[in-house]
């Protein structure tokens, strides 16, 4: 029998090794797997490379992981936030490596990893500082009169994502704009852990509406919906 339901966050994250590349979903308040990030902090893996759109807010979640010195490198598109002081301080004191990636390249490089693409040519960033790696320009090509930069996939050892509903085969649906990086990150990691607010019986999710088929998901952890920073609730409720 296939059963991807896991009883606890601790169990789902048990054997993440030092040096792992962790893809973490979420954009703003939507789709952030807060419980998994907190679990990673407790779990203890070090020397991590973290791929996320941002680089932490305030002092909790990803910012706490950074502050604990557990992350060697951030791969992200938008680290600067009004409350990104933890990242800012580490970056300015050169204690954290940053690979800044245009957001579309971030999404597409992750998707490419999931789809088995070796590399792809893309126009975004041509002629800019972000078409360079360590100060050296990446390969470019002119195709039908337009200029492109060669971009490589971003593979994850582990993806941590937040979905809405899931079943024991690992099929997932999302809620509103909380979908964001979830589907592509699920594809791109060797192991994908998703939190869901509801467990559906097998067959209980409309097959026409499943967004991430279970083939991309390794483990599912049920998290009660609470009025937390995870969002997805009405303040008045």
């Amino acid at each position, binding site marked *: 029998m296939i059963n991807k339901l896991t009883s606890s966050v601790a169990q789902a994250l048990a054997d993440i090794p030092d040096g792992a590349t962790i893809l973490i979903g979420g954009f703003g*308040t939507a789709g952030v797997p807060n419980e998994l990030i907190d679990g990673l902090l407790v779990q203890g893996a070090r020397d991590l490379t973290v791929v996320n759109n941002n680089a932490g807010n305030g002092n909790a979640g990803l910012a706490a992981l950074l502050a604990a010195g557990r992350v060697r490198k951030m791969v992200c598109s938008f680290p600067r936030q009004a409350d990104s002081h933890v990242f800012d301080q580490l*970056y300015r004191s050169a204690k954290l490596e940053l690979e800044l990636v*245009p*957001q579309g*390249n971030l999404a597409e490089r992750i998707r490419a990893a999931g789809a088995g693409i070796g590399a792809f040519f893309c126009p975004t960033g041509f002629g*800019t500082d972000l078409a360079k790696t360590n100060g050296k320009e990446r390969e470019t090509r002119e195709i039908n009169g337009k200029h492109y930069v060669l971009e490589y996939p971003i593979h994850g050892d582990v993806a941590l994502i937040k979905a809405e509903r899931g079943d024991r085969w690992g099929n997932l649906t999302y809620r509103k704009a909380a979908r964001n990086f979830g*589907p592509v990150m699920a594809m791109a990691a060797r192991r994908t852990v998703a939190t869901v607010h509801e467990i559906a019986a097998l067959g209980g999710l409309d097959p026409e509406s499943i967004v991430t088929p279970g083939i991309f998901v390794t483990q599912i952890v049920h998290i009660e919906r609470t009025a937390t920073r995870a*969002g997805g*609730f009405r303040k008045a409720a």
Partner: protein
Amino acid sequence: MDYRKRTKAELAARVAQDIFDGAVVNLGIGQPTLVANHLPAGREVILHSENGILGMGAAPAAEEEDFDLINAGKQPVTLLPGGSFFHHADSFAMMRGGHLDICVLGAFQVSETGDLANWHTGEQGAIPAVGGAMDLATGAKQTWVMMDLLTRSGESKLVGKCTYPLTGIGCVKRVYTDLATFACTAEGLRLIDLVDGLGVEQLRQLIGLRIRT
């Protein structure tokens, strides 16, 4: 001659006036977001948000916020009937694949031929952040910039050549400012309009660039 600058609301209304019925539009974070409040009545415009929304509506009433439904600036929004959600790679395929009619961005500098600098000042210790700016700038059918023409110290943000790190090359088609509206072309700037009381020669002096009228 005396002239009065366009207020932020007037500038947003000026941009909105050029957004055609049926357009699919991405409004960048900051000032461009205001354009949504000024779309002329009777025009149906679909707003795209890079985090995975088409058909974005206005901000919700207080206490009605849903923090799974936010815009690229991370503020709560609503969804119009007909709206849809999709993941990041699809959202950026819309942007990079030339499916958006117009994007409106802010800028630090724009060159007369449409080079854009809006992601990084390049200063020592500055935290860089690019987000979707490069994808939008090069991917939308038309990229428009909306900004004050001059910096606080009076320097023109329209320049011969950008000194800040580039976001894209030759990607800006129009620049809407508090003093005038320009088209950027391979041959340099062309004037579209300017505020009452401001002369073309006076405008030329302010920016120090050739302007075709």
